[in-house]
């Protein structure tokens, strides 16, 4: 590790892109699915970064690229400030730093082996066990609040509940002493009443073990609860990122606004009608310009031709939307480093909200 390792983020992705190629039809025409396009992301130690998006937005492919299960088509990874050489070499070393926890704990555990087996294997492979192997396994179980560990260590996966088994998945990931934990929808398969327990466990791992955690979810409310910052993905791109409560309280991208109005929220009384209809685009041929423009209620001419640059709306709040640039700056050549103050009261979301509230009786 170099000197700057302590200052550098635990894991950084620059311009990660994944295009899946396929053949179809009689003539075997080639096609490309733009699963993830030019995503840059920083995961710092002791923080939870959430990725929120609908299915098909590319969030799981992103996680798999970060875990080096899927080979990126383009882009770079930096682990502790050092560039990662992508390829088969060094993957085990990488896995001892970056671990992935999957959505379905029942599918990610071998059903014919006991919990002990699932936990001993990473300890052996990565030589991370202490002098007493049994004690190391028990210690892992205690770290994920499965105590007393004796009650769980000899169970088969089917003997545990979903929440308990997901905790075992986390224990397995922790076995290698990683710095980065990637959690892909870790609670969406679990019962409502036990989800919070697992979310709190993730929060504790951040606070007590200073892990850099990526939390992937489609549930924006849980992202707000758990994460320090939220990135919203749409059609393979990150379209907005901000501190968690900033993003949910004052969204700057029309798609984020759509997501928020669609999320169940008993506190608001009457649900607000959705601002727009439609479905995410097919990623084989994403629309030109802004990928959200076919659904966007505020679509302008420029949106149909030129992808918007990320605009700094506020400190730490970025949104890729032409509306966030003053009218004069909305030129195709607007650089990707555009950083202009937020256009409040412009023809954007806030203006529309005012109109909407006036119309209410």
């Amino acid at each position, binding site marked *: 590790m170099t000197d700057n390792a302590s200052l550098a983020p635990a894991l950084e992705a620059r311009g990660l892109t994944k295009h899946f190629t396929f053949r179809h039809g009689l003539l075997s025409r080639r096609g490309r699915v733009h699963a993830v396009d030019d995503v840059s992301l920083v995961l710092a130690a002791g923080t939870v970064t959430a990725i929120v998006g609908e299915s098909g937005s590319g969030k799981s492919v992103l996680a798999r690229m970060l875990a080096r299960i899927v080979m990126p088509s383009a882009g770079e990874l930096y682990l502790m400030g050092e560039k990662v050489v992508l390829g088969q070499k060094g993957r085990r070393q990488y896995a001892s730093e970056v671990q992935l926890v999957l959505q379905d704990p029942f599918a990610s555990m071998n059903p014919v082996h006991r919990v002990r087996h699932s936990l001993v294997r990473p300890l052996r492979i990565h030589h991370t066990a202490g002098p007493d192997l049994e004690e190391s396994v028990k210690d892992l179980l205690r770290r994920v609040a499965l105590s007393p560990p004796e009650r769980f260590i000899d169970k088969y996966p089917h003997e545990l509940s979903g929440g308990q088994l997901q905790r075992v998945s986390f224990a397995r990931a922790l076995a290698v002493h990683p710095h980065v934990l990637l959690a892909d929808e870790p609670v969406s398969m679990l019962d409502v009443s036990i*989800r919070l327990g697992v979310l709190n466990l993730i929060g504790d791992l951040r606070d007590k073990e200073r892990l850099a955690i990526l939390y992937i979810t489609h549930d924006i409310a849980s992202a707000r609860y758990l994460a320090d910052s939220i990135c919203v993905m749409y059609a393979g791109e990150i379209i907005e990122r901000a501190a968690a409560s900033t993003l949910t309280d004052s969204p700057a991208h029309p798609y984020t606004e759509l997501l928020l109005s669609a999320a169940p929220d008993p506190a608001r009384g009457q649900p607000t009608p959705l601002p727009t209809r439609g479905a995410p685009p097919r990623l084989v041929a994403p629309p030109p310009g802004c990928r959200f423009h076919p659904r966007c209620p505020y679509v302008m001419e420029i949106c149909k031709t030129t992808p918007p640059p990320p605009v700094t709306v506020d400190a730490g709040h970025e949104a890729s939307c032409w509306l966030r640039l003053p009218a004069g700056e909305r030129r195709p050549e607007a650089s990707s480093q555009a950083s202009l103050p937020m256009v409040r009261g412009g023809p954007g979301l806030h203006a529309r909200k005012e109109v909407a509230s006036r119309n209410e009786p």
Partner: protein
Amino acid sequence: MTGVWDDDVVEAADVRASSAPAGITETQDGPGMPAALETVPETAPETALETVPEPVPGGPALAVSSRGRDKGAVVTPSERPGEALLPAPSEDDAVFEICDLSIDYGLGPGALHAVRHADLMLRRGRVLGLAGESGSGKSTLVYGATRLLRQPGVVSGGSVRLYSRRRGEEGRVVDLLAASERELRRIRWSEISVVLQSALNALNPVSTIESEFDDVLKAHRREMSRKTRRERAAELLTMVGINADRLRDHPHELSGGQRQRVMIALALALEPQVVIMDEPTTALDVVTQREIIEELIGLRDRLGFAMLFITHDLSLLIELADEIAVMYAGRIVERAGASTLYRSPRHPYTHGLLNSFPPMHGETRRMTGIPGSPPDLAAVPAGCAFRPRCLYAMERCGTEAPALVPLDGEEHEAACFLHSGDVAVPGELAR
């Protein structure tokens, strides 16, 4: 797979076997039916036989050309011998009523009690939400009540009644658990239809959307010509926001949301009075889910059907339903109007469940949810099933199971000894 999940799998299998929306299940012979027939109290149809005007103020696009053949083909329970009298339905507007329904899986002492003594009443044109975690028995309850339950499910007690009212027909009461196969065939889909969670499993992958509609209409509206059937299918599809030219598509050509819309259109094809939605939006994205919910409410307003909406997502139900019943380990533990339930839950489980959904506004504070995990139905704790997870458990909770009793009026019921008057109610359950 979790316990919950297992349960879902069983249910999904049930449903697939009995063919998509509660329709063509003539051959299905509920294994528990003989038992059910013996234990079910008989209805007294006389009390409800007044002719009532159609409650739907002109469902616009949906007038079926004729329903002639079906008319008079109904066998009301009164025509069968040996009927005992039952009190009239307490509410004029009840359309579907479940009384004291118990459902087991298996027979004898080893039977698993999936639903115990459940009471539910669905009012005409209203939305009743049934919330619960996986394995709480919410789907079993509904399948038992509609006689879609398959082996080893057994209805071990209770009654289910449909108070049918249609324009140009006499109002009548049907005892669903005692109904003959012929009656069931007549009721299913026409009066009660079901929308299932997995549209992909419920739609036939090798037939077109049009033939799905065609099948239903051919089976239940024999007087319709091929042309009218096609027109009707197009009309239904348009009604749920899908272009009629998609009729020739196969299920795999539609998106998840569109498939679920097709399911809804199919369920509404015969203008049922009761539509049962079993987690219809669980597999969908939030935006699609919201679109479908908005559409369902619009359709409900136009067509006037009553909806029983099953989901694990209590926060969604609070926005959608008029009334909510919460199930835990096979029992209904609380029932109230949606906003009442949200503002002042009375059962510790409901309170915990509401606190399991992180809020979208305000300060982010640490929440705890509910400790422990839902019980295994094969080993439900004695007394109150929620006791091991309950913060307020008392000695009494370990021995007796609390019954659902009315609190502050009839609109709010909870099954918890905290409200028996013997102890001081904790502040958060007394708001």
